[in-house]
């Protein structure tokens, strides 16, 4: 297909032709085209359907402020919805589709909504879908979701990489138009570290869109020459295709660089987009200005666009939306578009200027004091109807209409710390206020300096001032310096349907209606009408809405208010925020030293925090996990089992005050613990609730090794550092986490000593007399390898924990398995560990659940009253010590075949089953191979005095109702004879 609307000149590369597809038709373009410019060149004005009414729409702008021209790009798992055609670069093979239409863009069945527009005005769903309430979720919402909306997702995983990065600079310049380029030149030549970022792929901003000259060069040539000089400076980093999305605290800016959106295939390993965190000393905002439209009847037809965008399409992209165009303006800038288009051979139907004193031009007709009152053309503009100054009407034939309502400075980033823009009467626009983010200054059009000369000069001065440069400024080239005269003209009176926010289909009438219905603040207006809430965030519509509101209220615009802006400046894909933090990289796993040994044994793993722990070790022929777990328990209790407990937190506590320190963090006493002994310790939070438990082994007078639960290792260490540094700063005590330094294994069962005696070097006596229950010490194993041995037991059996330096963990495990063959040694996983600790009545994470006290856990007497420890004072509170406080008990089904489940609640044997009569709940439950029935641990009101009582265990959710008996939590070896064997 030929490019019928391609003009001469421009910055596209005509030596090369690209082919692309839009809605399954093939078109051609040139490098340098955006999708929007290429479609216009191919005489395609209709690009999408509107959000609510499904009205035909084309592009309004030539930049990132675009509300209408949003499309789906690419196919398959790379499909991306809601992409602005005005910023998407065309590459060979680009495949784009229109959105929100069915069955086709030219015939959209839901355009019927447009006929019912009287019912679909602002707030329609609040008024219409009030009742019945149940219909909302089942009927109304699905229908609305289907009818309204934008593009669709592929529902497949995005195959591309996204990345994050960090950069630092003296001066970040945001925007590479005349002000930004001049600022970069000033700071760059002075030797400062400069980053110049611009969302466009071509640096130069409006300079690439204008026909005027800078000095002896054309504006675009001057921009190109300046960019060439800057790119040769080693201290200047140019970042095209990079949108600065937010101004954050302390001079940190977020920026999204689109590194791969403009190529057909990403080079291997390269990211599609990068989220940069830029640390700046100073930032200069040179974000330019956005032209504002005028609202009039049917002002949304394809072919109606901003006059400045028309100029960009003509001068930069060498294309026009139609061969015959009209301009509707309230200022001189609109005339400039007519002059430029005419110079490119486009016919000017007329310039319609609302001002009676509009300048005249001998090359085209200027209709002074005239207004566009209606337009025609179902799928694209064909005629505009003009009300002339004398009140008569005239119809002009044209395929495109440029609209210019003046310019709004792009103040968005100045608001990111809640700074409020201030009204400038001369410009009839908001300009940056005084309360900018610290370190930020503004130059050029963003600051209300709308002439090119002014922008260049303020860029140079802004950079020099921001950096405190004393050197001479670079020469500012001679450029247009037209006086700016913006008299506001927001909308043509008497319209039925004049569009303000084209992306969310909000009309002038909607804004008036919301005012009539009592929504007086701008924030309420916004939420009621959805004005400015679409993906473009109202860049071309907020001002119009505000102006109409001010008029309705009979107040000035600044009295009425302004909306401020939040990050991001333009939409950012979630994938970009995620970066490489996805899948395994989002949640890294930690492996214990003997992980690969466990894998060889066929272990099934479970994540515990970041750790992977063996859950059980199935043997050939075992078809159900219970078979494996029951076997591991039985074999351990009968002979010996080994479990990897490396993941427990280990904290080395050293110093002359080490014991005094542990006395503070544990509720029970440690001062009198003998060297060579280990003690169970319970840590409380300051509010008296149990935080964590573990053991502390005293290896020397001034040296303890503390263990924490796997899940709390990080928090406990942090807490201990808090106690050490913030509460007892003069204690002589040092802490270091040694979790990863030692591989540790529990060796449990009646034959555990015999097995260990085969590997512990003979000079260390580990007999019951020499190394009794709760003993600990430094030993050597396997002929001189240093190790630590603790005689502690979680399983309730005669048991030890042995620790060796991490790198020997794998070898030690293999050695224990080999040497244990004669005892029928079994490796056991976390499930068997859990079963055995429930059988023994040991509390674990299920019981230390953030609501339970030492009293609840049956350890009330452990809280020493003779000393101060964290949580001791508040644990004495009345409310935590009620006579019927929950106490940990064991439960057993009366009928041995019944199952008990964690989470079920205990009720008296008879009486109602409801929350008022709740007696407690089960925290842990398991099948006990030792008792041959299910057992559980529960918290029961006054549980200490209720042993032998029969109760009902109920779960209304699962309709469970089982008769259980309250028993001691110590199901196995309640006297502890095995431990001490």
């Amino acid at each position, binding site marked *: 297909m030929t490019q019928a609307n391609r003009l001469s000149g421009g910055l596209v590369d005509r030596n090369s032709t690209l082919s692309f597809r839009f809605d399954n038709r093939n078109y051609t373009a040139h490098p340098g085209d955006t999708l929007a410019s290429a479609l216009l060149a191919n005489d395609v004005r209709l690009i999408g359907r509107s959000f609510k009414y499904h009205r035909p729409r084309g592009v309004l702008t030539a930049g990132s402020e675009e509300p209408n021209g949003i499309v789906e790009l690419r196919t398959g798992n790379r499909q991306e919805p809601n992409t602005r055609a005005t910023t998407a670069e065309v590459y060979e093979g680009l495949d784009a589709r229109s959105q929100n239409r069915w069955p086709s863009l030219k015939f959209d069945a839901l355009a019927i909504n447009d006929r019912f527009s009287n019912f679909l005005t602002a707030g329609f769903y609040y008024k219409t879908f009030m009742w019945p309430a149940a219909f909302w979720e089942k009927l109304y919402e699905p229908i609305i979701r289907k009818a309204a909306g934008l593009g669709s997702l592929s529902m497949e995983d995005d195959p591309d990489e996204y990345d994050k990065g960090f950069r630092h600079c003296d001066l970040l310049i945001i925007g590479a138009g005349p002000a930004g380029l001049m600022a970069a030149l000033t700071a760059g030549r002075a030797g400062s570290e400069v980053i110049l970022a611009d969302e466009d792929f071509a640096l130069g901003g409006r300079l690439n869109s204008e026909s005027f000259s800078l000095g002896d060069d054309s504006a675009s040539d001057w921009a190109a020459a300046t960019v060439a000089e800057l790119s040769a400076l080693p201290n200047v980093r140019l970042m095209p295709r990079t949108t600065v999305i937010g101004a954050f605290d302390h001079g940190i800016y977020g920026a999204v660089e689109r590194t791969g959106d403009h190529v057909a295939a990403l080079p291997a390993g390269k990211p599609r987009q990068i989220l940069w965190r830029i640390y700046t000393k100073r930032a200069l905002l040179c974000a330019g200005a956005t032209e504002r439209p005028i609202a009039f009847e049917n002002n949304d037809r394809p072919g109606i666009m901003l006059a400045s965008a028309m100029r960009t399409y003509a001068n930069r992209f060498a294309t026009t939306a139609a061969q015959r165009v009209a301009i509707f303006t309230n200022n001189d800038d609109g005339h400039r578009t007519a002059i430029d288009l005419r110079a490119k051979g486009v016919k000017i139907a007329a310039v319609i200027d609302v001002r009676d004193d509009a300048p005249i031009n001998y090359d085209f007709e200027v209709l002074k004091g005239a207004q566009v009152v209606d337009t025609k053309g179902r799928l694209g503009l064909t005629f505009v109807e003009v009300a002339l100054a004398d009140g008569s009407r005239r119809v002009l034939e044209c395929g495109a209409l440029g609209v210019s309502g003046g310019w709004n400075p792009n103040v968005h980033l100045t608001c990111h710390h809640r700074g409020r823009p201030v009204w400038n009467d001369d410009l009839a626009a908001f300009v940056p206020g005084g309360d900018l983010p610290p370190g930020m200054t503004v130059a050029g059009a963003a600051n209300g300096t709308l002439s090119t000369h002014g922008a260049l000069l303020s860029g140079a001065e802004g950079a020099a001032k921001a950096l405190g440069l004393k050197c001479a400024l670079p020469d500012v080239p001679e450029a247009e310096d037209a006086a700016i005269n913006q008299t506001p003209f927001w909308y043509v009176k008497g319209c039925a349907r004049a569009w303000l926010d084209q992306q969310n289909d909000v009309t002038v009438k909607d804004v008036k209606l919301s005012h009539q219905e009592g929504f007086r603040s701008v924030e309420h207006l916004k939420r009621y009408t959805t004005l400015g809430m679409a993906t473009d965030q109202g860049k071309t519509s907020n001002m119009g809405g505000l102006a109409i509101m001010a008029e309705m209220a009979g107040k000035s615009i600044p009295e009425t208010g302004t909306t401020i802006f939040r990050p991001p400046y333009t939409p950012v894909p979630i994938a970009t925020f995620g970066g490489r933090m996805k899948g395994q990289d989002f949640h890294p796993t930690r492996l214990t030293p003997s992980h690969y040994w466990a894998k060889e044994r066929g272990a099934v793993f479970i994540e515990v925090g970041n750790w992977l722990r063996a859950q059980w070790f199935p043997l050939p022929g075992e078809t159900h996990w219970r078979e494996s777990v029951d076997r591991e328990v039985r074999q351990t209790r009968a002979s010996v089992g080994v479990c990897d407990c490396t993941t427990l937190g280990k904290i080395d506590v050293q110093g002359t005050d080490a014991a005094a320190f542990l006395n503070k963090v544990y509720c029970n006493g440690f001062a009198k613990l003998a060297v060579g002994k280990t003690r169970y310790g319970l840590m409380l939070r300051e509010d008296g609730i149990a935080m964590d438990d573990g053991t502390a082994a005293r290896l020397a007078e001034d040296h303890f090794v503390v263990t924490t639960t796997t899940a709390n290792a990080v928090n406990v260490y942090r807490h201990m550092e808090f106690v050490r540094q*913030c509460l007892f700063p*003069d204690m002589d005590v040092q802490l270091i986490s040694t979790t990863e330094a030692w591989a540790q294994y529990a060796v449990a069962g009646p034959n555990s000593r015999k097995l260990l005696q085969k590997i512990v070097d003979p000079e260390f006596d580990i007999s019951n007399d020499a190394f009794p229950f709760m003993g600990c010490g430094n030993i050597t194993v396997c002929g001189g390898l240093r190790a630590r041995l603790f005689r502690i037991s979680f399983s309730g059996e005669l048991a030890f924990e042995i620790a060796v330096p991490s790198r020997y963990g794998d070898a030690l495990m293999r050695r224990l398995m080999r040497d244990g063959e004669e005892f029928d040694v079994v490796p056991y996983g976390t499930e068997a560990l859990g079963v055995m600790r429930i059988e023994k009545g040991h509390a674990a994470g299920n019981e230390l659940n953030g609501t339970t006290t030492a009293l609840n856990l049956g350890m009330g007497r452990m809280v020493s009253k003779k000393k101060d420890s964290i949580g001791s004072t508040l644990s004495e509170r009345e409310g935590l010590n009620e006579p019927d406080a929950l106490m940990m008990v064991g439960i057993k089904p009366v009928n041995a075949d019944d199952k008990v489940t964690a989470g079920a609640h205990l009720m008296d044997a008879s009486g109602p089953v409801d929350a008022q009569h709740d007696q407690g709940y089960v925290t842990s439950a398991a099948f006990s191979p030792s008792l041959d029935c299910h057992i559980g641990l529960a918290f029961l009101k006054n549980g200490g005095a209720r042993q032998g009582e029969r109760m009902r265990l109920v779960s209304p959710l699962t309709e469970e109702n089982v008769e259980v008996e309250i028993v001691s939590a110590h199901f196995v070896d309640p006297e502890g004879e095995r431990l001490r064997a």
Partner: protein
Amino acid sequence: MIIPHPLLGPRDSSEFVYLGDASLIDRPDWQAENAAEAFYDYAYLRGNPAGEHHELWYHEGGDRSWLVVTRNTVTHEISKVELARDVARAQGRSK
């Protein structure tokens, strides 16, 4: 945010863990007559100023120092950063 660490210079806030009001340093005397009440206030009551706030940050991704950061909760301006240990000592805390 950037926290100027008194020993390590400016560090990104992502290296830190936030705890809260630095009044947590001021732990009551367990033997005082009103200890129960004082601990209740200590554990549960916090100022919530719109403005200058002394707060505890932990340099978990760094040297494991607890810091007292004076931060304006409205502007996020950080006007002072001290080692919590120094602050605790200045308040008379010892062993």
